[in-house]
Structure formats: structure tokens, C-alpha cells
């Protein structure tokens, strides 16, 4: 395991233990709904289903199609805000 993934695991563990991860998830959900990202994704899913046909499409198909677009469409302001929150949390709970 690389140093980076070890650090990521530690940070994640800390966030989960203090319940902060769930709170951040909720915040992210709210922000993404607000800025219309969720609706964009929904529309894209519908397109994929239309292309592949309702009977044959699997959850994996959808995931493979929408994940890159989903990651790209997250607004910078949302990323900034989440990053700010995580930094603030880590600063507060530094061991």
C-alpha cells in the first residue's frame, strides 16, 4: 500500500469514526442537488437506458457510462467547499 493510500485510509477512518464522513456526504448531496448536478445525471442515465434498451441495461453499464461524466461535472465551488470543510476538520482534530 502506497503512502498516499495509507494516508487516505487514515483520514477516512478518522472521518468515519467522528461521524464527519456522513455529515460531509449529506452536505455534498445537498450541494449537488442544488446546483442541478443530480438532475443532469438523471437525464444522462435516461439517455443511456434509451441507448442500451431497458431490458438489457445493467447497473454496471450505467455506472461505467455516467461515472466519468459525473466526476467532470462537479462544480469547482462544490469541490472547494468540501475541501475546506475537510481541512478544517483535520486541523481541529489533529493527533
Amino acid at each position: 500500500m502506497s503512502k498516499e493510500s495509507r494516508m487516505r485510509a487514515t483520514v477516512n477512518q478518522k472521518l468515519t469514526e467522528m461521524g464527519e464522513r456522513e455529515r460531509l456526504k449529506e452536505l455534498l448531496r445537498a450541494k449537488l442537488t442544488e446546483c442541478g448536478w443530480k438532475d443532469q445525471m438523471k437525464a444522462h442515465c435516461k439517455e443511456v437506458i434509451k441507448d442500451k434498451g431497458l431490458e438489457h441495461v445493467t447497473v454496471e453499464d450505467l455506472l461505467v457510462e455516467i461515472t466519468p461524466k459525473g466526476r467532470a461535472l462537479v462544480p469547482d465551488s462544490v469541490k472547494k467547499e468540501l475541501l475546506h470543510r475537510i481541512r478544517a476538520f483535520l486541523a481541529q482534530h489533529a493527533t
Partner: protein
Amino acid sequence: MPHLLKPNQSFLSCSNQVPRFHDAFGTSNMQRLLYFCRSWFLVWTCSRSVASCCCCSGGLLSTPGMLDMSSRASWIFAFSLASSWWTSWLSLSMLKNTAAKSCICHMCGAHLNRLHSCLHCVFFGCFTKKHIHEHAKNKRHNLAIDLLYGGIYCFVCQDYIYDKDMEQIAKEEQRKSWKLQGIGEKYTTWEPTKRELELLRHNPKRRKITTNCTIGLRGLINLGNTCFMNCIVQALTHTPLLRDFFLSDRHKCEMQSNSCLVCEMSQLFQEFYSGHRSPHIPFRLLHLVWTHARHLAGYEQQDAHEFLIAALDVLHRHCKGDTIRDDNGKKANNPNHCNCIIDQIFTGGLQSDVTCQVCHGVSTTIDPFWDISLDLPGSSTPFWPLSPGGDGSTVNGESHLSGSTTLTDCLRRFTRPEHLGSSAKIKCGGCHSYQESTKQLTMKKLPIVACFHLKRFEHSAKLRRKITTYVSFPLELDMTPFMASSKESRMNGQYQQTVDVLNNDNKYSLFAVVNHQGTLESGHYTSFIRQHKDQWFKCDDAIITKASIKDVLDSEGYLLFYHKQFLEYE
């Protein structure tokens, strides 16, 4: 490297790969027993459910077509479900520890790669890294459950499969876990009941709301100086929460006579959203208003603000059928604790703090309000001179043409501490004598719809006139500086340097403006209504025309209606 849990023998002897749960729960046998009992309860509920994977017979039993959950499988299902969600029942702190330490992949120890639990044995594996796939292939255990959303995956079908009962259980557990985490109720999409499906089938006509549609816009005939009433009706029919209440038929009338104003409002909403484009003639509404608010009867021009308050009052009184009942089915007797739709939407709490100048004791009262009446510069009451460029003057991004007053200025004046003077001494509870004091108003609780009334009509002993001073008002308003809580934090020395971007509770959007043209003796009311975001219409009795945002913001403004931007469940 995160600690990899070693398999250990526990009180569950049906598998040989068991994470060390008793470490997380403590070694109390009582706790273990409790956990054991809860799991059996879930087994009982699960064994009554049937997962049908119709496309493959790769289930636990090879019954072609249907998938049955044997009691052993139910037990495993219950165990894994319990381990991820029900462990929180024992204690909230354990939830955090358990989630972090016990729910991890048996192959790599990660817990964030779409962790799945095998439904045949106790095994946790990543989905992303295909660890659960490997396990499924090796052991021929073809069903697994996604620990985050409760979806069930079939490795033969290579897709998630859906079972009504399982989804029901997952939904219930999710709701419980939100509650325990303090998130409370969350929005879930609407799913129709059987009755609703029936109604929809019998009534196939549908109206689609697009971004440019004009549904809900309708002119109102002037019945003789009734423009004051028409404007308020336009504002009310475009109040989103009120519209939703009436269009979903939530009023249950308990009045015997035909004179219920709420029923009439309901009718009015039906008329407005019927799609008819001809102007509506509100004669029944006018008649009911005259019946219930005598002071407004007659064909002279009335004050729109007075009409608003009178209308809200009558609606509030007639809403008795919709008030909540307590556990014994008795209605709440206290008129101040009404929970009717009018109170839910329009009632706020105004805090009045009277501070004794001698002992600095504060006496606080909170009064309900439906609107905020703001004094304007140019009236006989002196307006507190405010210098533009002072702190927070750009709070709401209003256009600050030199010398022009803004809504924020008026609000600041409204919430400033006021010396009551030696002629108005208040009896102080601390000093037990009459002392000079200061009084300050702040918002304790903000209503969902905030109505600001600019006091343009002056009826003092000396003169009756209309104040036409231009007051600029914003499209978006942040009420945070005027809250009682902000005042407290200012007094405690916590100056708000930056506006808290994460607190959305106090943000409002303009959705209706009522304007008065002319003089006190003869004038005419019109209104601007927001149909969609950035789409405004001018309502002049029977004539509805498209308006620009500039038209709206440049208008004089008499009554300003703002709606909370973010609504939360209680």
C-alpha cells in the same frame, strides 16, 4: 496497513469466517444476548420475504424461476444487515467504531470500495476490486447485498435484482439509521398508493409544467376599486407552499355554512390553475370578505396591506378543521399554538428586548407577526441616518445609488436599539423602580414567507399623505444580521467577519411585489408576480403582461413578499 480482522470462533457457529464483533460491543453477555435477539427478529421478518430472481436459478435453492430464502440464508442475511445497520442500536459511539473497524473487506481490509456482504456465509468483500466476485465464484455463493444501499446482487444474472419486500426492509432500516445519526427525515421520492394509481388511471388528462408555461397566471376583473384585493390574491396564489396545500386538497372544512373563506380560496386556486385564460371574476370572494371583515366592506378603495392582514386572519380562523390534534384526538385549544397552514407559512416571532439602563437587566418578550411594517425616510418619525459604506452595507448586493435608501437600511433601523426616553420609563424587575431603558427588536423566528410593508401612507393628526421615497429592494435577501441569534453573538464579542456560506436558513427570494400608483385619495394597485426563476409578470387587474426584472426592482414597492430559499423538515 489497516488491521486485518482474523477469523474467530464466536457464538455463531454456522460459518468459519467471523469478524470479531464482540470486541466492538464489549464482552457483556447481556449485550450479546440483546444483539442475538434482535437478529432473530430480523430473521423472522426476512424468512417471510421471497427474493425472486426469475432469470436464473442460481439462487440458494435451485427451484427454477423462484428464489427462496432458507432459514439459514435468512439468518446470514439478517446477520450481515444487522452488522452494518443495527449495530447502531446498541450505542451510537459503537456505530462509529464498528463501521470503521468491523465492516471491512475480508481480502484487503478496505471499507470504501462498495462493500458487499455474501448472503450464503459471513463474508465481506469489495465490489470495485472484485473481491466479492472471487468469493462468489469460488464458493458458488451467488447472492450478495450492497451494504450501503441494501441492493441485492445476483452473480449469475450479473446485475442487481429487485424484490419488493427486501426494498421495504432496506427503506425502513435506512430511515432508522438516519434518525440515529441525527439526520432526521430525508426527502424520498413520491411513490403512489394503490388508490392514487387508480385515480390517475381514471383521469388520464395531464398538464405538463415546462419552463415557459403560464399555468397559474390569470387576470382578475376589477369589481369597483377592488384592485387592492386583486393584488393580494395574485400574491397568495403564487405563494408556492400555499399553492401546494390547496392544489393537493388538504383543507377539510368543518364549517356548516357556505361561508368558509378557506374553501373559497381552494376554489380560487382551482380557477387559477385550470388553464383558462379569460379573467376570473372574484365576486364570491369579495362577498365573503365583506361578510367576515366588515371594516373592508364598501366600494371605496381600501388598503392592500389591511386587506392582507384581514384575509390571513379570516383564513387562519377558518382553518380550524386543519389544525393538528393531540394524542387524545382533542384539538389544541390555545389559539396561539395553531398549526394551520397560514401559521406554518406566514407566522414569525418578533423578539423585543427591553434593557434597563441602570442594572442592565433584560426583559424579553416574543410576539407573533405576519408582516413587518417598516418606517421610511421622509415620514414624520425621524429616520436613523445611515452612511452607505458602513459595515454590511453590501450584504444584500443592493444598488446603492448615492443617498437612496435600501430595504436593508429600513431593516437595520427597525432592529436598532431605541432609547425610550425619560417620559417613557419602564418598571424594571431588577431595580424594582421606574428606570430609563432601551428597547430593541430582532427576529426570533423567521416565517417561511416574509412580508415587508413599507409604510407609505401617513395618517398623522397633522396630515394625510403618501411617501413616495424610492426604496431599493433586492431579489435575494439574507436576514441573518437581523436575527436575535446574530445579536447575541455580536454581544458575546463574536463578530461575523465573513458570511457563513454553509448556513442557508436565513436566505430569502423575492416572489411578489405590490405597488400603489397615485395619491392617497385616488390610486391604483398593481402587482409583480414571479412565475419561474427570473420570469416575472405584471398583474394589472384583468391584464397580465410579461415584465423584466428591472421593471420589478425599479418599482416603488409597497408590499414585498419574500420566500425562504431552503425548506427543511421539522
